[in-house]
């Protein structure tokens, strides 16, 4: 089971579970564990240090009736909800930038078709382009899991993989 312990001294990161999104304006670290085909979408405004992280599982919320109840579940609705909440907190729409990580294809099952991870990546990129939000960094695809930590204050997105070889599996976007 999941534990919520934290290292002494370090402020505990805010967990962003599947289908959740969190917006913050401080030095909080927002963290999503064990992304496989799910996608982490981080938006931030470098001028106001306001940013947010979404942990989406499906591409297309507009095709679903009740996506307004859980906007964080879908790539398109999550990006719009993040943007709206950030602007409400004082971010400037025009300076917001995006980073994404995740969207692996872990298994080659027949029922998965082209790959559930790929669908999420494509949907996120489409929506960002539609809204004119530049995607400045990404670590997507492949067939491995990722844990991400996003600090809105600096815009840093740290991506960890279970791969123990090069760089200890840690990448900074």
């Amino acid at each position, binding site marked *: 089971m999941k534990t919520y312990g934290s290292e002494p001294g370090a402020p505990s990161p805010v967990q962003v579970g599947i289908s959740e999104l969190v917006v913050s304006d401080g030095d909080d670290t927002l963290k999503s564990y064990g992304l496989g085909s799910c996608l982490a979408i981080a938006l931030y405004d470098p001028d106001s240090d306001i940013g947010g992280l979404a942990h989406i599982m499906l591409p297309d919320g507009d095709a679903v009736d009740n996506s307004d109840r859980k906007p964080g579940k879908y790539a398109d609705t999550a990006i719009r909800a993040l943007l709206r909440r950030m602007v409400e907190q004082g971010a400037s729409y025009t300076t917001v930038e995006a980073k994404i990580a995740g969207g692996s294809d872990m298994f080659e*099952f027949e029922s998965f078709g082209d790959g559930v991870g790929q669908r999420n990546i494509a949907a996120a990129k489409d929506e960002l382009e539609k809204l004119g939000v530049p995607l400045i960094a990404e670590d997507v695809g492949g067939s491995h899991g990722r844990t991400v930590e996003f600090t809105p204050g600096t815009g840093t997105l740290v991506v960890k993989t279970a791969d123990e070889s090069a760089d200890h599996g840690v990448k900074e976007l």
Partner: protein
Amino acid sequence: MKLDVNALGTFYRMAREGAGLAAGRLTHMTGVETQVGVTKLNFMRGREIERDFEDSREKIGVRVNLTGAIEGYSMIVFDRENALRTVETLRSESNEPIDVAGGEFDEMTESAVTEVGHIMNSGFIDGWADVLETVIDVSTPEFVQGETAEPFFGDVDSAPETDDLALLFQSRIETVGAEVGFNHYLFPKRESMASLLDRLRTSGGIEYDKLDGFDRMAERGAEEVAKTATTLTGIDTSVEIRRLNFVSLEAIPEQVADEKLVGVAFEFDGMPSGYLLFLFDEDSAHEIVDAMVPMEVDEDGFGEMGTSAIKELGNIMASGFLDGWANVLDTTIDHSTPEFIHDMGAAAVDPVIIQLGENQEFAFVFDTVVVADGREFDCEIYAIPDESDLERALNDLDVDRIEETPTTAEFQEVNNT
């Protein structure tokens, strides 16, 4: 009694809402940040619940009797230490002196724990009443303590008998950083549950007895898996936990250990179709490779030999598991070739819930844990059928077949003493 996904979904929302309110009140009381851990609707047999309790840790419970829209018992259960720590936190907030060094529950501590437990219970119950838009009456709280299940629900008439399958609400609330947590259980009375289900159901639904019957079959399938594992590896294994959960899809990866795991995944196709995952911690996986590969293997991590040994074990366990289902459902269920994974546990599960998530919000999960005595062999098994397939398969199920259906092997109690 009949249930359907809509009714169970409402129950699930009730449980989440209640857990949220209870967590909020705990934060308010203690000034400590809290989080809702796992929330589940479990279908569990009496003996499984007993096993859940028997971890030889002293526990404290605060129990209330419910009447009105829901009848039954609601209970907050703390590990004894956690109860003390919670009271400690409370008293330090109010600057009252505290002396729990001896660990004895004096009258004051007992009444403080009872009060906390009661406020938590009330939080849950208010949450359910909100969702149901109705009134639930609560008795005065009762303080219970002990190491086994007996004192907690031995005298609760709505708790299931050893062989009975009961619907149980379980939630866990934890403080952030302070490592205080507790479990919440609701044992509703069967009649009360039946009338609520009738009210909330929007489709024909599944006959409860069929679910019960199918679960009994799944239980035998799990025993079969343990036996297969024993035969193949020579490691004596047995089924430790087995339950049928009804959870939101998002909650499934969250219950997987937050560490690097070794797994074998399958898709299965038939009536029902779905996904089957076997997950091992790394130590267990190494032990399995050592047991199955006769020669000394000099490989980093899990090389070709190790991978194929684990895939082979997974393949045979999957057949044992699914054959049991197919036999009782009088159908065939085919499964794919095994896919090996050595990665973060949650990452192995999320593709499956994404795929199912296109068409469903919740899932029945057949949760099984197989363990070995004295040696490393911990295997978590998740079988997640497609919801509409499962509903159809269950409706076609002839409950009388269950006892008559031969399983692929002779079943016997796995004795690991």
